[in-house]
């Protein structure tokens, strides 16, 4: 029988739909009977959604500025990119 700890181990696989059918059924049965695990799965899922919403994941502005500069310089230097000259 699936215990709460076992469910915590496979919780992400359950959330992502990665469990085999039999195991998924065991989790569903357990969740019907166990409020604590329902809360846990709900909260783990909410944390995952939160992470997605936070995915603004901006790179450091200074790094972006340095990349812009290097790219612009490389584009100006040109021979690596003859097509750019045709369009200007």
């Amino acid at each position, binding site marked *: 029988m699936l*215990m*709460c*700890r*076992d469910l*915590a*181990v496979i*919780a*992400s*696989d359950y959330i*992502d739909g*990665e469990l085999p059918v039999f195991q998924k059924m065991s989790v569903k049965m357990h969740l019907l009977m166990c409020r*604590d*695990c329902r*809360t*846990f799965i*709900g*909260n*783990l899922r*909410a*944390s*995952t*959604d*939160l*992470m*997605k*919403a*936070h*995915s603004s*994941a*901006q*790179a*450091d502005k200074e*790094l*972006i500025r*340095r*990349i*812009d500069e*290097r*790219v*612009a310089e*490389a*584009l100006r230097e040109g021979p*690596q*990119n003859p*097509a*750019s*000259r*045709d*369009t200007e």
Partner: protein
Amino acid sequence: MAHSALNEEQALIEGLKTGNEQSYKEAVRTFTPGMLAVARFYLDHSSAEEIVQDCWVTVIDAVQKFEGRSGLKTWLHRIVANRCKNRLRNSKREVPTDFSDTLEPELADRFNSKGRWDLPPKLQFHDSADSLMENGALSDCLDKHLSALPEAQRSALMLYEAHQHKSDDVCNILDVSASNLRVLLHRARQKIFLMVETFQETGEC
């Protein structure tokens, strides 16, 4: 990918192929965070930034041969991963990664010897992710905890959740097995779960 997104990506690729600086600016802003997440899986912070910068310069040439067999994002992430792997090969360094435990110790301690909850989660996270994110303090706290995640876990989480790669792509880019990716994702999610729980219970990060 939706039809309009595909068209947008095609237009961006054309811009990159013709050396349009504005297209590069757009692509750099869109793809650098993910490229950095890949590089940080393999390398320390400053080497990772260096590799990503070098990759963008390489892209100017390489994009001419880009045939669109994969999406632009996946292609860029693979370039970064290959460069990082080459650098590691040259320095004979290995990426130390711990796949041994699936449960975070802090969570594992909350079960009794019979495998039942001793300290179950007390609060339900009622608010939606969007309304939670309006809480600036929580957002700062999330930033802090994301930065503190082990590199392997953070990269896996960023690529899978934030940059929405499929599992197969993440495994390919990070050179990890499917089962190890599951461990990395689960460990990272538990840490974020524990952080949000502490924040909701105590208001502290």
